[in-house]
C-alpha cells in the first residue's frame, strides 16, 4: 500500500509539502493530547468513594500559552497553504491550452490544433498545460490525484486549471463533484507522452473536422461517433474485452444476459442499450454504462448500428 499517489506533476510535490507539515503538527498535538488524556484517566482513577479533590478552576498563564502557540502555528499553516495555492492558480504564459467539456458522464478534450479526444487527455512531459473547462449540464469536477489538482466545471462559466506533468505514463481522472447516476463511471485518463511520442500523436491521426459530419455515409459517421462520444473507452472493435463487450461480430447474433435469458442483437437492442443501458446487461459485465439519452440523437444511433454491422 502506498500512502499517497505517485508524484506526477510539478504541483504534486508542493502540495505534498503542505500535507506533510500539517500531518506532523497534527501528530504532535494528537499524541500529546492522547497521552495526557490517557495518563490522567489512569493516574487519577477514583480509588475510594470519599476521595478529596483540589479546587482548581483555571490558570491564566496556561490558557494564554495554549491560545497563543496554536494561533501562531495556525497562521503558519494558513500562509504555507496560501503560497502553494497561489502557484496552483497561476499558469505559466507558455502553457499549452486544452478546452475541457464535462457532461454526464464523460470528458471531451479539444486541442489547439483542432484535435478532439474523449476521456483521454494527451499531454507532453514537462510542458505546462492549461485546461479551460466548462460543464454542459450539471457540475462536475476534474480531479487527477497524481497531479494533486482539482477544479469544478460549472455550466455557464469557464474555470481553469494547470499543471506540468513530470512523469510519462497514464494517470486517473476522476469526477469529484457528484453529477448523477453515472458519477462514479465518469472516469478518464491523462496520457503523458515523451516529447517524441507527443509529436507523433500531434501529427499522426488526421484532425477531426467537427461540423459537416452529417454528410458522411452512415457507417463512417457511426465510426466517428463511436470514437468521439467515448464508446471506444469501453467497447473494442477488435474482439478484445474492455469494460463492456466488444462490438466485433455481435450484430445478428444472440447474447446471454445477466438474468440468464438471451437476446438477439438487432437494431432495437442496440438502441435500447445506448439509451437504457441498465435494462439488459450482458452476462459478465458490470452495469456501469451511462445512458446516452440526450447526448446521441436517433440519427446517431442509426449511424452507429450501420457501423456495428460492418464489424464482422
Amino acid at each position, binding site marked *: *500500500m*502506498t*500512502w*499517497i*499517489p505517485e508524484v506526477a506533476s510539478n504541483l504534486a510535490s*508542493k*502540495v505534498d509539502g503542505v*500535507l506533510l507539515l500539517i500531518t506532523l*503538527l*497534527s501528530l504532535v498535538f494528537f499524541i500529546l*493530547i492522547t497521552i495526557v*488524556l490517557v495518563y*490522567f*484517566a489512569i493516574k*487519577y*482513577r477514583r480509588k475510594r468513594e470519599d476521595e478529596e*479533590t*483540589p*479546587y*482548581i478552576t*483555571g*490558570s491564566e498563564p496556561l*490558557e494564554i500559552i495554549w*491560545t497563543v502557540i*496554536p494561533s501562531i502555528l*495556525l*497562521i503558519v*499553516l*494558513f500562509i*504555507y*497553504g*496560501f503560497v502553494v*495555492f*497561489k502557484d*496552483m*492558480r497561476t499558469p505559466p504564459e507558455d502553457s499549452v491550452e486544452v478546452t475541457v467539456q464535462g457532461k454526464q458522464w464523460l470528458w471531451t478534450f479539444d486541442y489547439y490544433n483542432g484535435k478532439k479526444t474523449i476521456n483521454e487527455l494527451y499531454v507532453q512531459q514537462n510542458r505546462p498545460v492549461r485546461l479551460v473547462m466548462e460543464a454542459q*449540464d*450539471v*457540475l462536475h469536477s476534474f480531479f487527477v*490525484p497524481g497531479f*494533486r*489538482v*482539482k*477544479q*469544478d466545471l*460549472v455550466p*455557464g*462559466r469557464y474555470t481553469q486549471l494547470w499543471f506540468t506533468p513530470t512523469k510519462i505514463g497514464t494517470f*486517473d481522472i*476522476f469526477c*469529484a*463533484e*457528484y*453529477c*448523477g*447516476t453515472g458519477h*462514479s463511471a465518469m*472516469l478518464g485518463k491523462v496520457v503523458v507522452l515523451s516529447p517524441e511520442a507527443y509529436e507523433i500523436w500531434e501529427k499522426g491521426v488526421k484532425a477531426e473536422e467537427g461540423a459537416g459530419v452529417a454528410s458522411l455515409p452512415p457507417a463512417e459517421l457511426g465510426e466517428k461517433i463511436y470514437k468521439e462520444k467515448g464508446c471506444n473507452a469501453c467497447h473494442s472493435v477488435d474482439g478484445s474485452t474492455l469494460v463492456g463487450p466488444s462490438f466485433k461480430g455481435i450484430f445478428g447474433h444472440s447474447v446471454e444476459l445477466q438474468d440468464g435469458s438471451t437476446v438477439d442483437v438487432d437494431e432495437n437492442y442496440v438502441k435500447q442499450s445506448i439509451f437504457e443501458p441498465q435494462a439488459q446487461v450482458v452476462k459478465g459485465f*458490470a452495469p*456501469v454504462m451511462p445512458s446516452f439519452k440526450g447526448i446521441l440523437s436517433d440519427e446517431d444511433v442509426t449511424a452507429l448500428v450501420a457501423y456495428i454491422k460492418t464489424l464482422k
Partner: protein
Amino acid sequence: MANHTIAHDVYVPFLEKKGILSWILSTDHKRIGIMYLISISFFFLVAGVFALLLRYELLTPTSDFVQPHTYNVFFTLHGSIMVFFFIVPGLAASFGNFLIPLMIGAPDVAFPKLNLGSYWIYLLGTVIVLIALAKPADTGWTFYTPYSATTNTDVVMITLGVFVLGFSSILTGLNFIVTIHKMRAPGMTWHRLPLFIWASYATAVLQLLATPVVGITLLLLIMERTLGVGFFDPAKGGDPILFQNFFWFYSHPAVYIMIIPAMGVISEIIPVFARKPIFGYKAIAYSSLGIAFISFLVWAHHMFTSGISDTAATIFSFLTFLVAIPTAIKVFNWTATLYKGSIHLHSAMLYALAFVFLFTIGGLTGLFLGALASDIHLHDTYFVVAHMHYVMIGGTVMGFFGALHFWFPKWFGKMFNETVAKIAWLFIFIGFNVTFFPQFFLGVQGMPRRYATYPAEFESLMSLSTYGSWILGFGIFIMTINLIAGLINGEKAPQNPYGSLSLEWQVPSPPPLENFEEIPHVTDWTYGYGKKK
C-alpha cells in the same frame, strides 16, 4: 405558606399521567424533550440502516448489491435524514428541552405552547419527507444545482420537508433564548450558568439567525423546479455557485448547531465524574459564542474548488483557521479538568473521553481542509467523509450517547446495566475507528466520495471500512437494547447517583411536574467540586 407543605408530601413525577393524549398535548418541556428524543433516535436508526446498506454496497468495487442510482438515493437519504432529522434538531431539541428549565431553576420554558407547536412542526416536516420517499431524491443532502433542478426524482417534497423543519428549529431557538434570558432562578447569574446552558444559548442564536437562509434557499430551488424561475440554472440566467453560497451560509453554522450542544454535554459530564470544577469556565463559555459568531464567516471553505475567486478563497481559508482556536482551547480545558481529579469511568464518562479523543482527530483533520493547497487535493474525497464523520459521530453522536447514559436515571427514574453499557461503548469505539480511519488514507490516495463503484486499487481499505461498520452497528444495537431494557425493568434510580452539584440533580428522579417545589435560590456556580465548605 400552606401549599408548600402539601407539595412536600405529594410528589407527582412528570411521567405519572399515562395515555397518548397526555403526551401529544403536553406542554411540559420534559415530555416534549422525550418526544423529540424518541423521534430523533428513530431517525438515527433509520439513517443508520441506510449507512450499513451503503457500506455493504462498497464492500466490492462493482455494483453487485444495488445499482448506482439506488446507491445515490441511499446516500441522499442517509445524509439528509442524519443531518436534518437527527443531528440538527438532535441534542438541542431533546436534551435542550429537558434540561434548560431544570438547570436554570425554572418551572418550564418561556413559551410552553410554542414549544409543543415546534414539535408538531417537526413532525409535519418528517411526514412530508416520508411522502417524498415514493420517488426519493438522488441529489445528496446538499441539493446542489443544477443537478437538483433537473433530476427527475422528487426533490421538491424533500426540500419542502426540510423547509418546514426549519421553522421548528427557529422557534425552538427563539424559545430557548427567551427562557435563558428571562427565567433564570434568583442568583443564577450568567457566570454561574452550567456550560450546557451557554452551549444551548449559542446554538439557539445560530438556529435563529442561520436557518432562515436555508429556508429561503430551498424555497428558491422549489420555485425554480416548479415555476421555472431561473435563480440557479445558468440556462435560465441563474448562477449555480449562488446556490452553494446560500447553502453553506446556513450549513456551515449548522455544523456548529450540531456540535456545540455536544460540547456543552461534555462540559457537564467531565467535571461530575472527575469531581473537579471545569477548567477555564469562562474560556469555554465565551468560546461557544465566539465559535457561533465566526462560523458565519467561513462558509466558502466548502467551495475552494468551485470556481469562486482566489481572493475569496484566501480570505475564507484565513477565517477558517480562526475558528480552530476556540475549538482547540476547549479540548485543552477538558483535558486539564481531569488533572488531580477523582475519576470514575462510568459509561457516560467513557463517551465523554471518546468525544475528546475522536473530536481531536476530527478537528485536526479539519486543518488539512482549511489550508488551501491541501484542500484542493482532498476536497470531495473520502478524506472529507472521514473528517465529517469524526466530527459528527466522534463528536456529536458521542456527546449524544454520553448524554443518554448520563441523564437516563434523571429522565426516567431507572438505571440501565452499566457493564453492558461499557461493552457496547467498546464496540462502538473500535467499530467507529475501523470504519472511518481508513477513509483518511483513501482520501489522500484520491478516492472520490459519492461513488457507487470504485477502482479496484481501493478495495482493501474500502472493505476494511465496511467490516468496521458492522462492528459499529453491532455496538449501537447492544446499546439500544440495553437502554430499552433499563427503561422497562431497570432498578429504581436515586435522586443524584453521581453526586452532581447542578440543579437538575437536586430534584427527585424522574422530576416532578413543575420541576421545583419552590424556585431555588442559587448561591454558587455549578462547578464547586472540591471546594472546602
